[in-house]
């Protein structure tokens, strides 16, 4: 690999669920403050790979990795790394919005409270900032004490993004963040990603090729655990170099 300073990097990464070889020799480097999209058929390992960047897979019985995952050049599986510190740096948004059954406000400041921050002014300030960044503030500012579960799906997803942003990570992992949303909410999330990339390094898994095209700078195509092609999004979607990529993005697989 080049000497480039990548924000996120995987080197000869292999991952296993028990005997199942889920990721096969992945090498990739993702630039800071760029959006990288992961695409590929269902079951190819996108979510597995995404979750290795904040060690979400650690919970899964029988899961293990070989090779390196680096954040700012540091191995995140190193013994000296504290997973809670890592998750402050690397936030995550899931496919299905998963707000806690608490108020909107409590949802956003949840991470901060866990960190022991009690100062009301700090919490309020962070909540507003994060909700603004997530383009939700205007819709909820008068109802911050309302239950988060009373929000629409699209609003809930933006709330989860606000919750992820509140702990000020530098990396945002998004696993199909807009797949359950209508075109308007989906467009809002895309606009948000476009705004957020000035400050964050973003990795997004999506099954929507047009969405990948619109939001990402780089695209990685995975196929049965392998990274088949990784290039500038505009190159991958106009002239992919691997026929498997071409077949997949033009819908001619299988």
């Amino acid at each position, binding site marked *: 690999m080049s000497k480039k300073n990548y924000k996120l990097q995987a080197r000869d990464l292999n991952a296993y669920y028990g005997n199942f070889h889920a990721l096969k020799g992945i090498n990739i480097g993702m630039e800071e403050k760029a959006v990288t999209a992961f695409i590929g058929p269902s079951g190819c390992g996108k979510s597995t790979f995404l979750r290795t960047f904040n060690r979400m897979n650690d919970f899964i019985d029988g899961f293990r990795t070989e090779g390196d995952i680096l954040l700012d050049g540091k191995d995140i599986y190193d013994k000296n790394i504290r997973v809670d510190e890592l998750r402050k740096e690397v936030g995550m948004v899931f496919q299905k919005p998963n707000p806690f059954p608490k108020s909107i406000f409590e949802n956003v400041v949840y991470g901060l409270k866990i960190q022991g921050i009690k100062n009301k002014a700090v919490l309020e300030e962070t909540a507003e900032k994060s909700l603004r960044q997530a383009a939700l503030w205007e819709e909820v500012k008068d109802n911050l004490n309302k239950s988060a579960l009373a929000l629409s799906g699209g609003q809930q997803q933006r709330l989860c993004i606000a919750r992820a942003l509140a702990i000020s990570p530098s990396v945002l992992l998004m696993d199909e963040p807009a797949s359950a949303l209508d075109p308007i909410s989906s467009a809002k999330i895309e606009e948000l990603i476009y705004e957020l990339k000035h400050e964050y390094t973003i990795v997004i898994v999506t099954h929507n*090729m*047009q969405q990948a*095209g619109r939001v990402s700078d780089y695209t990685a195509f995975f196929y049965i655990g392998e990274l088949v092609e990784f290039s500038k999004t505009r190159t991958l*979607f*106009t*002239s*992919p170099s691997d026929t498997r*990529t*071409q077949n997949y*993005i*033009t*819908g*001619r697989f299988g």
Partner: protein
Amino acid sequence: MPHIDVEMKALQDKLLEMWDLVEYQLAGGREALLNQDVVLAEKIMKLGRKVNRYDIKIDRQCENFIALFNPLAVDLRQVLASLKINNNLERIGDTAEGISRIVTKLKEPIPQELLDATRTSEMYEKALFMFSSTRKVFLSSNTAEARLILKQDKLLNKIYRQSDKVLAKYLREHPEQIEVGLHLYNLIKKLERVGDQTTNIAEEIIFYRDAKVVRHRVKKKKKGS
């Protein structure tokens, strides 16, 4: 066949129909010229309207295809190439119409010795051959052959570049033929254009098949070195 391929095939078929029409205009123009056949020339000119209808129809088909199928990679390149091929076919049709218009303006056939001296027949032959080869390449996707077509255009350019001197010499010797000479020069210019427009089509085929842009390549090279 996947739905997207069915639609792409329909687009390709429409282009091929237009191609046949324009080829008829071009080949008919040659007949009309060599036989001073004004009736045929007028028929060819009338066909222009039909070609224009194809042009509009194909444009719309491409637009719908992009809006409805969100094509990517080779599909995207093919529909973009189809737009440009359509555009060039329409212009070749126009040029063929122009050739026929010249025939209707001629009061008598162009003298054979003048056609020979300017190599007009040879040029017309070559332009027609290039045009029909491009259609074959469009169907076969053989981009190596498409590249050969680009080379053939050089001969047309050469004949065109030499024609003014040849014509000037002839007209100094036959000043009474000045009007015929002007028409002929106009015709040669049109044939040179057919060569260019056919070359454009061949380049588009290479673009969508090989994802390579061959246009302006020479200029870029000069800048780079």
